[in-house]
């Protein structure tokens, strides 16, 4: 039995690096410090849905094959394709991504990572406006106002609050955890009383819990760390917040611009913006201006809804305006553990963070044209390689229709919807469990991923599989040329 300390968790963009694993007989038997997703990954990754042999589709059925045969077939498909798509990359190591880019250049394909359906609009906007940001450590120690906009860290980044923001014990800022517990206890007590009261006097089923108070509470002006959540629905994170603003769907842009006006001391001549009374917004703008160090985290609630990159333009501009009055930073809540790494490696290799087209022999970047969803919607690609991702589950149906109508090669440790539709599947080792590598946290801090157990017999890493495919592609092309 060995205990491995300071393991980096390969699940979400928070990349918690304080996980302790207990290993016995080449198996993880205990996880300490991890969230629910982290535990599910370390304890359940080797479950029944693991693929252990390369599979090739023959007459509609999957047939087990040797690694060499699968590599040869995949290389043939990619070498012959005119306009292949190479997609995924956010759940593998930077080292594997680097080989993927080499492969894309070699075969003249379009290479795109999951940011394209995630924070792609944020990147576009950052390129236009610029981003005042910092590392999560700075926020942990100094930030006294945290805003989550269109993001629900309790579900998507469960330890974000505990490690980096309100519930973390910073050097200059105390954790708000105790206050939160007291608040929840009081709330539960109140709910119990209300329920008992209603049961006695009304004898009917209790429906929805009472809405959070909409008026900003006096506690919003306290000295300690404050949490404001802005979202279209009352998430668990919103329940933890000192103040929650429920914005009407697709109205984030209006709300952001209203805040910009208020922060510049301009007056709004309407009563309500996006379903929120202006007097409440004035009070929140006041809290923003009067904080010492504020941090705004935004999620897919801004990038996926109406306005998309323009929402982010407004958010970045709001932070710029706020910096004229106080200190404020902004950061996107990145989803996959190495999506930031994918953007970083793409940028240092090609100059562009995602949606890179090599079909003319040099990298070209024009999201909307060279982004994978658009290529698929226009029906232009004629083969695809998907690495550590599940676009069949996560792309809109029309885009998937074209993806699966062409030869599809998948590299993934697990069976998933995309693998089910594949023509060739390569099983791979789990990065951060069975093979080491590098990943970038959401604040662009690179962290090492550890190898804690041996992969099953014959299972290679993404990097090694890609290297072999690349070698084979070069051999096929060499034969053709000479």
């Amino acid at each position: 039995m060995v205990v491995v300390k300071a393991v980096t968790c390969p699940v979400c963009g928070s990349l918690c690096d304080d996980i302790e694993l207990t290993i016995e007989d080449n198996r993880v038997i205990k996880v300490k410090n991890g969230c629910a997703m982290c535990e599910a990954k370390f304890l359940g990754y080797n479950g029944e849905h693991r693929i252990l042999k390369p599979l090739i589709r023959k007459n509609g059925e999957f047939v087990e094959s040797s690694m060499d045969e699968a590599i040869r077939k995949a290389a043939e498909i990619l070498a012959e394709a005119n306009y292949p798509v190479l997609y995924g990359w956010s759940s593998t190591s930077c080292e594997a991504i680097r080989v993927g880019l080499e492969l894309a250049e070699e075969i003249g394909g379009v290479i795109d990572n999951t940011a394209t359906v995630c924070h792609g609009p944020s990147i576009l906007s950052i390129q236009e406006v610029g981003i005042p940001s910092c590392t999560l450590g700075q926020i942990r120690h100094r930030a006294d106002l945290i805003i989550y906009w269109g993001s629900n860290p309790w579900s998507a980044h469960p330890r974000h609050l505990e490690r980096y923001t309100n519930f973390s014990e910073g050097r200059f800022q105390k954790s708000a955890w105790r206050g939160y517990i007291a608040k929840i206890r009081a709330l539960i007590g109140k709910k119990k009383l209300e329920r008992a009261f209603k049961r006695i006097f009304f004898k009917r089923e209790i429906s929805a819990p009472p809405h959070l108070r909409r008026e900003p509470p006096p506690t919003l002006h306290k000295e300690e760390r404050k949490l404001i959540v802005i979202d279209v629905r009352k998430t668990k994170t919103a329940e933890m917040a000192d103040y929650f603003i429920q914005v009407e769907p697709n109205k984030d842009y209006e709300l952001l611009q209203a805040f910009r006006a208020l922060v510049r001391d301009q007056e709004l001549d309407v009563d309500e913006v996006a379903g929120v009374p202006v007097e409440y917004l004035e009070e929140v703008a006041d809290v923003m201006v009067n904080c010492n160090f504020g941090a705004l985290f935004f999620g897919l609630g801004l990038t996926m809804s109406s306005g998309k990159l323009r929402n982010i333009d407004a958010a970045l501009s709001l932070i710029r305006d706020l910096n004229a009055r106080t200190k404020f930073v902004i950061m996107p809540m990145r989803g996959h553990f190495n999506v930031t790494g994918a953007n970083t490696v793409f940028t240092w290799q090609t100059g562009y963070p995602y949606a890179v087209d090599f079909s003319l022999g040099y990298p070209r970047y024009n999201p909307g044209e060279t982004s994978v969803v658009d290529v698929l919607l226009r029906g232009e690609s004629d083969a695809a390689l998907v690495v550590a991702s599940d676009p069949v589950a996560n792309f809109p149906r029309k885009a998937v229709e074209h993806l699966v109508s062409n030869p599809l090669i998948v590299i993934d440790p697990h069976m998933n919807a995309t693998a089910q539709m594949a023509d060739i599947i390569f099983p791979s080792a789990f990065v951060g469990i069975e093979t080491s590598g590098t990943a970038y946290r959401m604040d662009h801090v690179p962290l090492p991923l550890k190898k804690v157990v041996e992969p099953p017999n014959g299972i290679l890493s993404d990097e090694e599989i890609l290297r072999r495919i690349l070698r084979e592609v070069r051999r096929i092309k060499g034969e053709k040329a000479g």
Partner: protein
Amino acid sequence: MLGFKIKFEISRRENITHQGEEMIEKPKLKVTLLTGRTIEQGVGKEKGKMSKDYIENVSVCYMDPEDMKKLGIKDKTNILVSTKYGSIVVRALKSKRAPHPGKIFIPYGPWANAVTDPETHGIGMPSLKGIPAEIEPAPNKPVLSLGELLKQQFRKG
């Protein structure tokens, strides 16, 4: 005694209205479809995208209890969600985060993406949140398994 009488009255009246509605026409409701992450989906995907945990947690739709009343359905009844881009049967669950009338929530996954908007507005990003949708009860239609769903949509797999 009085309480019991009132309860009885209410339940009888509800039955009548429900039956009446069903006889006239199937109730439909115009809503806004939101998609996103849930912790159950997050745990499920780490266990494996074919695991029961994942499948069961992404083929559902969280609804406001008042909206469920309007449709005349109970918790865990199947509903048909239709948008301009397709329709899908999912299991309706009572939202723990109510009230949010007129808004339904389906976690990210193949079921949600059967009805999301592929329009990228020239920047590569499909419109995956805040889509106008219509819902109706479909107690007799089954929620498709992942295999059935893929077969039905893409005739492969």
